[in-house]
C-alpha cells in the first residue's frame, strides 16, 4: 500500500501523546471526583432521606377490619351475628389453563354470568398473584363438593370471611335495620382511616344508629411487599378492637307475638315499659328479610319490595304519621280539667252532631243517634265526639297545643333509632308559618278528636300513653338496654333518660281520666269492653278510629263524601295493669276499621304475651 513518505518525529509524537494522555487522565480524574461527590451526597449526606423513602417503598400498611359487635335481645337471644361466609377464589398465577379450570368448576359449582363477567374484569386488572373472587356465599353443599374435588383445582381455594346475618330474619327488622356494603355516600360520612379494612356499614335502624359502637377499631398490619404489591411477610401487627355487643330492650318473643297478632294487616304497634322507657316490642307490618341486603340485594327483589303497595320497607313505628283520632281524647280531657275549662260534673248534650254558631256545617258524632247528655268520663268511655268538639272550642287551639306538647305530641320522642319523624301538633303559629293562612275555628273543633292537621307516630302515642301511666313522668323510649365491651364481657347499661315531668295541678284530674280509660275497657258501655271481659288484669285504654283522608285539606269537612271513600285506621292505646303499669302500648292498624274491633284485640294479645307470661 503506497503511502506518501512523511518524516515522522517519533520522539515528538511520543511526547505529545504522553501529554495528551495525561490531560485525558486528569480529565477522567475530574469526572470521577464529580461522580464521587454525587455518591457522597446520595449515600452519606442524604442517606437518612433515602432510607426513609426505601422503607416507605418496602413497608405497606394493611388494615385489619374489626369484628362487628353482636346484637342480642333483652334475654340474650341473638338478633345479629357474624357468620362465616365462603368465597371461591382463584389465584391466576397458579392456574395453567384458566378456561378449562372454569369449565370444570362450573360442573360442581353454579357460576352465573354476573359472577363470570366480574371475575374476568378483575382478572384483567389485578396482579396475577392476587386471589380473585369467583363466587360469593357458597352454601354448605357447594363447599363440600368443592372440598372433595379440591385436588383437581390447583390455584382455586375457598376463603372464609365473616358476613352479617340476622338469624331471626324479618323479626324486628324495623328496629335492627341492616348493614350493607359501603357505598360512595357512606364513604363521605365515615372516618376513612378507621374504615379502611371495613366493607360493610349500618344502613338503617340500630345497625346505623349504633354504627360507631358496633364497628370497633381498625387494626394495622405492617407488611413487607414487592413493587407489585405481593406481601412477603408481616413485620408488625396491631390487632383490631372488636365492636361492642348490644343488648336491646326488645323481647324477641313478645316481638314475634306482636307481629303475629297483626295477621295480614298493615300497621304498627309499640310496647313500652313505662317505668324505664324500654321498647319491649316495636312492630311495623309488613316486614322484610334484611339478610339479602347485606351483600347487595338483587335488583328484581329490591324492586318488588319497593313496588309493594303495602310498603314493607316503610318504618311505620317511627315514620308513619297518622291522625291519632279519638286516642287523644284522654289527653285533651286532662288538658280541659287541669286548665279549668271543664269540670268532672260539667255536661254537654250530644245530639249526634255539632254546629258552630252562625254556621250550618254539621260536625258529626260517630254515633248518628247521639250520646245524649254526657260528662267527661262518659265521653271518654263511649268516645263521644261532640263533647270534645265543644271542649276543644272552649279551650282554644293555643291552650290545647301547649298542654299536649307536654306529652310527646308534635316533637320527636328522642328514641335511639335514627329516622324518627316528629308528627304534627298543629297551632295557629305553625299554620301561619307553613301555610301562610290564618287558623279557623272549625279546625280547632276537629283537632279535639285527633283529626285535621293533627298527626302522631305510633311511637309518640305509646310514649304519651306511658306518660299517662307514669302520672306525668316523661321517660324517653330506648331500644338499647346495655353495651357489652367485646372481650371483657362487662355490661354498660344505658341510663334512663327522662324529660321534663308534666306539672300536676290536681291529682284527682289525672285519676279521673285514668278511671275513664279503665271504663273504656271494663265498663259495660266502654268502647273496648270486649277485650276487658276476660282480662286477668285491669287495663286502661282508649280506642280510636282515624281517617287517613284527613291528611287532605280540601275534603276534610265533607263527612258524607269521606265516609264512602275511606277505610278507617284502627287505633288503640292502653297501659296495664292499672295498679302498677308494666306495659304501655299503642296500636295502629291501617284500614282496620274501628279501634275497638281490630286494634284493641291486637293490643290485648300483646299485653297478654307480656303480662301473663312474665308475671311481675
Amino acid at each position, binding site marked *: 500500500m503506497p503511502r506518501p513518505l512523511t518524516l515522522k518525529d517519533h520522539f515528538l*509524537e511520543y511526547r*505529545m501523546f*504522553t501529554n495528551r*494522555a495525561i490531560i485525558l487522565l486528569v480529565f*477522567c480524574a475530574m469526572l*470521577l471526583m464529580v461522580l464521587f461527590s454525587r455518591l457522597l451526597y446520595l449515600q452519606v449526606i442524604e*442517606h437518612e432521606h433515602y432510607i426513609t423513602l*426505601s422503607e416507605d417503598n418496602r413497608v405497606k400498611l394493611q388494615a385489619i377490619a374489626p369484628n362487628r359487635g353482636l346484637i342480642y335481645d333483652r334475654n340474650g337471644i341473638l338478633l345479629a351475628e357474624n357468620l362465616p361466609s365462603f368465597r371461591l377464589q382463584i389465584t391466576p398465577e397458579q392456574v395453567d389453563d384458566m378456561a378449562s379450570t372454569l369449565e370444570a368448576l362450573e360442573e360442581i359449582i353454579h357460576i352465573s354470568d354476573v359472577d363470570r363477567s366480574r371475575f374476568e374484569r378483575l382478572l384483567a386488572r389485578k396482579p396475577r398473584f392476587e386471589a380473585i373472587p369467583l363466587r360469593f356465599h357458597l352454601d354448605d353443599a357447594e363447599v363440600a363438593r368443592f372440598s372433595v374435588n379440591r385436588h383437581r383445582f390447583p390455584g382455586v381455594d375457598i376463603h372464609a370471611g365473616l358476613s352479617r346475618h340476622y338469624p331471626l330474619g324479618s323479626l324486628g327488622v324495623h328496629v335492627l335495620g341492616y348493614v350493607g356494603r359501603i357505598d360512595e355516600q357512606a364513604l363521605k360520612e365515615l372516618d376513612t382511616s378507621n374504615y379502611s379494612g371495613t366493607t360493610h356499614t349500618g344502613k338503617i335502624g340500630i345497625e346505623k344508629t349504633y354504627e360507631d359502637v358496633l364497628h370497633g377499631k381498625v387494626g394495622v398490619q405492617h407488611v413487607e411487599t414487592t413493587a407489585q404489591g405481593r406481601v412477603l411477610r408481616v413485620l408488625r401487627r396491631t390487632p383490631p378492637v372488636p365492636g361492642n355487643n348490644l343488648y336491646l330492650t326488645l323481647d324477641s318473643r313478645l316481638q314475634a307475638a306482636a307481629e303475629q297478632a297483626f295477621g295480614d294487616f298493615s300497621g304498627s304497634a309499640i310496647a313500652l315499659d313505662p317505668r324505664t322507657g324500654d321498647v319491649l316490642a316495636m312492630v311495623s307490618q309488613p316486614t322484610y328479610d334484611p339478610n339479602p341486603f347485606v351483600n347487595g340485594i338483587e335488583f328484581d327483589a329490591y324492586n318488588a319490595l319497593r313496588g309493594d303497595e303495602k310498603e314493607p320497607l316503610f318504618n311505620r313505628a317511627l315514620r308513619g304519621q297518622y291522625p291519632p283520632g279519638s286516642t287523644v281524647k284522654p289527653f285533651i280531657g286532662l288538658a280541659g280539667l287541669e286548665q279549668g275549662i271543664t269540670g268532672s260534673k260539667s255536661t254537654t248534650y250530644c245530639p249526634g252532631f255539632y254546629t258552630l254558631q252562625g254556621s250550618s256545617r254539621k260536625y258529626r258524632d260517630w254515633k248518628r243517634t247521639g250520646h245524649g247528655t254526657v260528662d267527661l268520663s262518659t265521653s271518654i268511655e263511649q268516645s263521644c265526639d261532640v263533647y270534645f268538639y265543644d271542649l276543644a272550642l272552649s279551650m282554644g287551639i293555643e291552650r290545647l297545643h301547649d298542654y299536649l306538647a307536654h306529652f310527646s305530641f308534635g316533637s320527636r320522642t328522642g328514641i335511639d333509632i335514627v329516622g324518627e319523624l316528629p308528627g304534627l301538633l298543629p297551632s295557629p303559629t305553625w299554620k301561619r308559618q307553613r301555610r301562610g293562612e290564618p287558623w279557623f275555628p272549625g279546625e280547632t273543633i276537629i283537632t279535639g278528636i285527633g283529626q285535621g292537621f293533627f298527626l302522631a307516630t305510633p311511637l309518640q302515642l305509646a310514649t304519651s300513653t306511658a306518660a299517662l301511666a307514669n302520672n306525668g313522668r316523661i321517660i324517653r323510649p330506648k331500644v338499647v338496654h346495655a353495651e357489652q365491651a367485646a372481650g371483657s364481657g362487662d355490661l354498660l347499661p344505658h341510663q334512663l333518660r327522662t324529660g321534663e315531668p308534666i306539672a300536676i295541678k290536681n291529682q284527682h284530674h289525672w285519676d279521673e281520666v285514668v278511671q275513664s280509660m279503665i271504663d273504656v275497657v271494663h265498663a259495660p258501655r266502654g268502647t273496648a269492653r270486649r277485650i276487658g271481659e276476660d282480662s286477668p288484669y285491669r287495663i286502661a285504654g282508649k280506642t280510636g278510629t282515624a281517617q287517613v283522608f284527613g291528611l287532605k285539606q280540601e275534603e276534610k269537612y265533607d263527612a258524607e263524601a269521606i265516609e264512602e271513600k275511606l277505610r278507617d285506621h284502627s287505633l288503640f292505646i292502653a297501659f296495664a295493669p292499672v295498679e302498677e303499669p308494666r306495659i304501655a302500648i299503642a296500636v295502629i292498624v291501617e284500614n282496620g276499621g274501628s279501634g275497638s274491633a281490630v286494634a284493641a284485640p291486637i293490643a290485648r294479645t300483646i299485653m297478654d304475651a307480656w303480662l301473663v307470661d312474665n308475671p311481675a
Partner: protein
Amino acid sequence: MSAVTSHRREDASQRGWQYRLHLDAPLLLALIGVSGLGLMVLYSAGGEDADLLSRQLIRLAIAFATMFAVAQVSPRLLMRITPWVFAAGILLLLAVLMGGEASGGAQRWLNLYVVRFQPSEMMKLAVPMMVAWFLADARLPPNRFQLLAGGFLIAVPMLMIAKQPDLGTALLIASSGFFVLFLAGLQWRLLAFLTALAAAGAPIIWHFMHDYQRQRVLTFLSPEKDPLGTGYHIIQSKIAIGSGGLLGKGWLNGTQSQLDFLPERSTDFIFAVLGEEFGLLGVALLFTFYVIIVIRGVLIAVQAQDTYTRLLAGSLAMTFFVYVIVNTGMVTGLLPVVGLPLPMISYGGTSIVTLMAGFGILMSVQTHRKLLPT
C-alpha cells in the same frame, strides 16, 4: 555480569509467562476482580437465579477466551486487516439498515442463522482501529485534510448506528474515534471550534431525536415530574443507592433490588444494586478495579512502540472509561438515561465480548513489543 549484557540477552522466552501467553497480569487481575464482583452483584440482582448466573458465566468465559485469542494476534497483523474489518463492518451495518431484525423498536440485529449479531458491536473496535490505521504513518499532529478524513471515517458508521436507532453505541463509537484524533494531537483551537459547533448544533440534534430520546432528556432534567412513568427508573435507583449508605444493606439484602422496586436491575441499573447492598465502600472497590484498568491501558498505550498501537490502545482505554462514567452517571442521576450497560457487570449482551476483545488488543500491544536495543 554487566547490565548491558544481561539486557542484550533478554529475549521473549525469558520475559516470563506474560509474554509467552501474551497476557498482561495487572490488566488480567483487575478484569477478573471486576468480573468476580459483577457475578456477586448479579446473583443478588437476578433474584439468586443460578441459571442466570451460569449463563453470565458462560458469556464471561467466551469473553475471556476471545480476549486471549485476540491477544495472540500481533498488532502488525491487526493493522494489516484493519481496513478490511472496517469495510466489512460498514457492509454489515448497511445490511442491518436494509433488513435487520427489529428488537425493542430498534433495528440492531443481523440474523446470521447461527448467532444473532450486532454489527454495531464490531464497529466499537473497527472505528478506532481504522482511524488509528489512517493516521499511523501520518506526520502528527494531523493536518486539516487528515482530520477531515478521520472525521469522515467516524461520522459514517456513527450516523448509520444512530439511524438504527442506538444513540448510546453511536456516541461511544464517536468518542472512541475522537480519542484517536485527540491523542494524535488534534489542535486545541480546532477542538474549541468543534465544541462550539456541537453546542450550536444541539437544537438541530434535538429536532432529529426520537420522542423517547427527548423524553429521556426531559426526564433527566426533572425526574420528579413523572414519578410513575419515565422518572421512575431514576427515582428508584437514587433511592437504592442513597439508602445503601456507607456500608450497604448487605449482600442479598437490598430491599429496593430484592423487592422489584428497581427496574432493569440486572442490566443497565445494576450499579444501583451494588450501591444499595455494598454501599459507598463497594462502589469504591469497583472503581478501584476500573481505575486500575484505565490507567494500565493508558500506560500500555504510552509504552507502545508505534503510532497505530499507541493511538488504538489509548483510545480503547479511554472509551472503556467513557462506558463506566456514562452508565454510573446515568444511574446516579447525573446524566440522562442512555441504554448503556455497566461494563463487565451488567447481565447479557454481546458488548462484554467486544470489550474483552478490546482488552485482548491492549494485551497484544503490550506483549508483542520488540526488544529495543539500548
